């Protein structure tokens, strides 16, 4: 791609929310040379603006030479960071490519996405990871950080060469979609990766409890005659892997937490000081299994299923859960048991959803709707705007920097694995590849100029035909959401801007 530096930008008059600096006030944000240059508070009294942490102050430096972005009435925040994105490249380009997936990310306000390794081939060797890094450099619209596979071919049999993967830029390891069933192998994975300080991103599903499962096991599965995936099939594996985390001193991150039981297990593990974190998806925070009825979340009140029932766009793994579970996940996100939002953006081709429910692929294309979905929690009074930014930008960025529950992830001291197994060098890290900046998810002076500007109140109607993603698979088609990304700036360049006609 050509040089994307747009020249200096002045984002004027927006409500700047940057939890990393405790900022929530109207200010101007100046960007230059791909970095945050300064933030200038607007007080209406020229020359007197000042506040701790607001960078160089003094006379309003003016905007000569800057392109001015009018952010009045909007929120200006660090660009969103997604720890869980399926970009599908290499091998599954018919579903998504790095180009389309990152363009979709930009529309969703994301400036950093972490690419899941369930590609074809899987990201289980350094050369495939390097391929993704190169393709991202050539075609990506925003920052792409690869996630390596835990096991070779994601087969759950043999550990991948994790140190090699880390050296190539992997920021963590996951067999997402195919949970590591063998407890001993998971133990080894947690122990081995602990030397790297990188997390095992854990899809928790006890497959012996979910044979043939299509949706959440509950009243909706009873009504529709679809085999159920009980909430407890997540909890049993979360419990197992927390125990193994304690055993090994590894770093465990629970992907797409969907159940009350799992949230409680993570909460208690954190209280015990373990290296355990968790994420939740926009859909598990906002949609229930009743969406499978095909009535946009309503249930057939004693009446008939509509012809639209069995909406395959609601099929996702883990499945959309009960109200009780959704409430618990929201509560976990609010109280800190769940660290941040991750999308699990999972684009599929149309043919993979235009079929029976049992035949349909799992996944929702949601990176373009994620912010508005989470924003609905703000409108419902469940989160503050500042908490939203913290859970979509600040916290995932801290996680990438190696912070676990407010402290550096512990390395080595708890490792009980045979030291002979450890790699000779543990100096590898994505940062050493220049992929992961030293600071991310912040508008601190000198940080990468990754910024999202959004209108928290603007209503818009989801039209998948206008997605940048190839994946049109969303149950939200036709649904009006409140809250819209109006511009996304990555490395100082405007990579997405809502045009006047885009309503």
């Amino acid at each position, binding site marked *: 791609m050509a040089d994307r530096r747009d020249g200096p930008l002045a984002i004027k008059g927006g409500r700047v929310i940057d939890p990393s600096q405790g900022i929530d006030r109207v200010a101007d944000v100046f960007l230059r040379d791909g970095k945050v240059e300064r933030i200038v508070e607007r007080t209406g009294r020229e020359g007197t603006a000042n506040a701790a942490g607001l960078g160089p102050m003094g006379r309003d430096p003016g905007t000569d030479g800057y392109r001015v972005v009018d952010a009045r009435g909007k929120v200006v925040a660090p660009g969103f960071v997604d720890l869980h994105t399926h970009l599908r490249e290499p091998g599954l380009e018919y579903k998504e490519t790095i180009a389309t997936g990152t363009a979709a990310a930009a529309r969703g306000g994301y400036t950093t996405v972490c690419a899941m390794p369930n590609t074809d081939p899987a990201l289980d060797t350094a050369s495939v990871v390097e391929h993704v890094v190169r393709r991202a450099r050539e075609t990506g619209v925003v920052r792409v950080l690869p996630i390596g596979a835990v096991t070779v071919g994601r087969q759950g049999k043999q550990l991948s060469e994790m140190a090699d993967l880390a050296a190539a830029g992997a920021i963590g390891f996951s067999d997402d979609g195919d949970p590591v069933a063998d407890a001993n192998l998971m133990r080894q994975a947690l122990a081995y990766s602990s030397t790297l300080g990188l997390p095992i991103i854990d899809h928790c599903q006890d497959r012996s409890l979910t044979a043939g499962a299509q949706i959440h096991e509950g009243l909706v*599965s009873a009504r529709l005659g679809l085999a159920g995936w009980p909430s407890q099939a997540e909890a049993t594996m979360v419990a197992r892997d927390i125990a193994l985390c304690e055993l090994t001193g590894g770093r465990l991150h629970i992907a797409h937490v969907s159940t009350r039981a799992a949230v409680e297990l993570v909460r208690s593990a954190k209280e015990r000081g373990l290296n355990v974190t968790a994420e939740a998806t926009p859909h598990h925070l906002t949609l229930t299994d009743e969406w499978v009825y095909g009535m946009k979340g309503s249930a057939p009140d004693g009446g*008939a299923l509509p*012809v639209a029932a069995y909406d395959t766009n609601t099929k996702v793994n883990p499945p959309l859960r009960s109200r009780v579970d959704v409430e618990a996940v929201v509560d976990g996100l609010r109280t800190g048991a769940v660290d941040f939002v991750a999308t699990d953006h999972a684009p599929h081709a149309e043919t993979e959803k235009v079929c029976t*429910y049992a*035949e349909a692929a799992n996944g929702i294309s949601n990176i373009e709707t994620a912010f508005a979905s989470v924003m609905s929690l703000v409108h419902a009074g469940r989160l503050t705007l500042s908490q939203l930014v913290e859970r979509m930008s600040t916290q995932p960025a801290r996680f990438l920097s190696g912070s676990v529950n407010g402290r550096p992830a512990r390395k080595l001291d708890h490792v009980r694995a045979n030291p002979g197994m450890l790699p000779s060098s543990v100096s590898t890290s994505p940062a050493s590849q220049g992929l992961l900046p030293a600071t991310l998810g912040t508008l601190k002076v000198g940080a990468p100029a990754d910024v999202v500007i959004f209108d928290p109140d603007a209503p818009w109607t989801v039209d998948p035909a206008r997605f940048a993603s190839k994946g049109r698979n969303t149950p939200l088609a036709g649904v009006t959401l409140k809250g819209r990304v109006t511009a996304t700036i990555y490395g100082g360049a405007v990579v997405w801007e809502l045009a006047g006609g885009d309503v």
Partner: protein
Amino acid sequence: MPRAAERRTNQGGLWAGPRRHILDLDDFTKAEIEEVMLNADGMKEVLGRGVRKTPALRGKTVVTVFFEASTRTRVSFEQAGKILGADVINVTASASSVTKGESLLNTVRTLQAMQIDALVMRHPHSGAPYFVARHLDTSVVNAGDGTHAHPTQALLDIYTIERLRGKLAGKRVAIIGDILYSRVARSDMIGMLKMGAEVVVCGPPTLLPPGFTPGETVPEGQPFEGVRVARRVEEAVDGADVVMVLRIQRERQDAGHLPSLREYSREYGINAARLGLARPDALLMHPGPMNEGVEISSDVAHGDQSVIEEQVANGVAVRMAVLYMLCARARNGGS
């Protein structure tokens, strides 16, 4: 191009205009079920004639497409269509291109291109007829979808009971067996509750759907609200007007739902002693095919109270009625 699904509703009923599909009984009114039964009476009269043929659906084409093995239901629909004078084309999954990897949608679109009037389908996946109905203009009749619904079976069950014993309202129906995986049980529960019956179910706890708690009634606001779940089969059958026995599949044993079919038979099988707990004139029913000696003993299956063969005979009349109602009437929203 407007999607077919957007132009279409499935509102049925005597006064709501013609029905387009029969996907389950959940969108039937009680009056509409009664209308089906009145039509079935007329069809039974046709079936009793020396020459069993009417031209009611002459020039109409009915396609049955079964993606899952079935003899009884397919033959029943085929016979129903032929007696009404329709051209009936039977497509079985093994004989069609489905096995060559062609999608379900393409298969039924190809069939529709043959200008058919009704598509009778059975599919192993719950909800498959809803998917097909969303994408086709043809009337879709659900002849059994996965573990979801089997509406014409429920209609013939209701018909058989009402014509032998009068109105279902106030009568107690006991449904015994694998409720979790039974599409017959689901449609029967929905239809019989609509008709005012008291429905009691009983089965091993491993084969009860979520929300069905032994010893409790399904609470208001939940699917199948009002169904009582008995702890023991004797309690379920006690005083029943109808005992509906469900087929138990060997695969439930293989999947670990049951220790053995032998133990199932001992704990839940309907035999003379258990049937004796029901009202003396209680009807014994089974949707077939039966595993005699497992869920039902041979003596009662072929005994005085058994109406299992009448269910089969009534099945043809009821399917004639629904095909007639779907195909013969003018449509006000079709294309």
